[in-house]
């Protein structure tokens, strides 16, 4: 169970009563989690903003339906996961490789190492974006939010075995796609 019991329950009850300050507090509590999952899933800020906004609108409008059977945090994660999966397939950002390569060649020392790290991060995120949505969401919940297998299973409404299987498939796909980075990672 991902819930922090009593203060959260009070907050939820205040939201159910329509208290404006409670909504504000709820937003401040979950904004980073919701936005992080949205950004890591969607891969671009504009889409992440849309997903996060959609999640909070649904959350505020459906909070009366929250019965407390699952933890509230789990419920919030379910909302953002559904918003992510509902999001229409967007146009992929094309990385201007030539420009980045020229910039890398012009740089030196720490700046070069920093740029290499940033480049590796971009490649990792791009590889994650290429995963199918069901594999990608498992990776995001695992590495962005640090959720355990049982927590991911609770959010997605599937078994721990399914989570383990999807993570395994995602890891293999990422390892294959990012194999060329293994040497670069060692130097960065």
């Amino acid at each position, binding site marked *: 169970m991902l819930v922090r019991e009593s203060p959260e329950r009070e907050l939820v009850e205040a939201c159910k009563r329509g208290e404006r300050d409670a*909504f*504000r507090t709820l*937003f401040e509590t979950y*904004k*980073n*989690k*919701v*936005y*992080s999952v949205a*950004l*890591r899933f969607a891969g671009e*800020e504009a889409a992440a*903003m849309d997903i*996060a*906004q959609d999640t*909070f*609108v649904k959350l505020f409008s459906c909070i009366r339906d929250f019965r407390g059977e699952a933890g509230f945090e789990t419920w919030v994660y379910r909302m953002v996961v559904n918003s992510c999966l509902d999001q229409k397939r967007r146009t992929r950002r094309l990385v201007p490789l030539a420009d980045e390569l020229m910039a890398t060649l012009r740089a030196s020392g720490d700046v070069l190492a920093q740029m290499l790290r940033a480049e*590796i*991060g971009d490649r*990792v*995120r791009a590889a*994650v974006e290429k995963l199918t949505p069901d594999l990608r969401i498992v*990776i*995001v919940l695992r*590495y*962005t*939010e640090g959720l355990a297998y049982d927590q991911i299973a609770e959010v997605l409404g599937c078994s721990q075995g399914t989570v383990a299987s999807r993570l395994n498939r995602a*890891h293999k796909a*990422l*390892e294959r796609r*990012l194999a060329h*980075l*293994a040497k670069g*990672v*060692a130097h960065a």
Partner: protein
Amino acid sequence: MPEWLERELAAGLAPVEAPGALRERVLRPRPVLPARRVSVFLIAAAMVVLSAGTVWLSARQPVRVSNARWNPATRAPINDHNCVLCHTL
């Protein structure tokens, strides 16, 4: 899974801080809508004005009906169907 991949995934997918613009989008105050009663009143008033205008115009310009003219050139052939059309109206 290799250790480097685990490390890079954790680094590359690290959580981020939500931009301030998200707060604006989610918590911005809704514009205050005018009360529905006012809208209904305005619509009713507009309908009354339109009705009055229509009545006034129709009273001012009586409809002129032109006299029917007989035109032998357009004489319709007499058959059962034509008779039924006129005599049932």
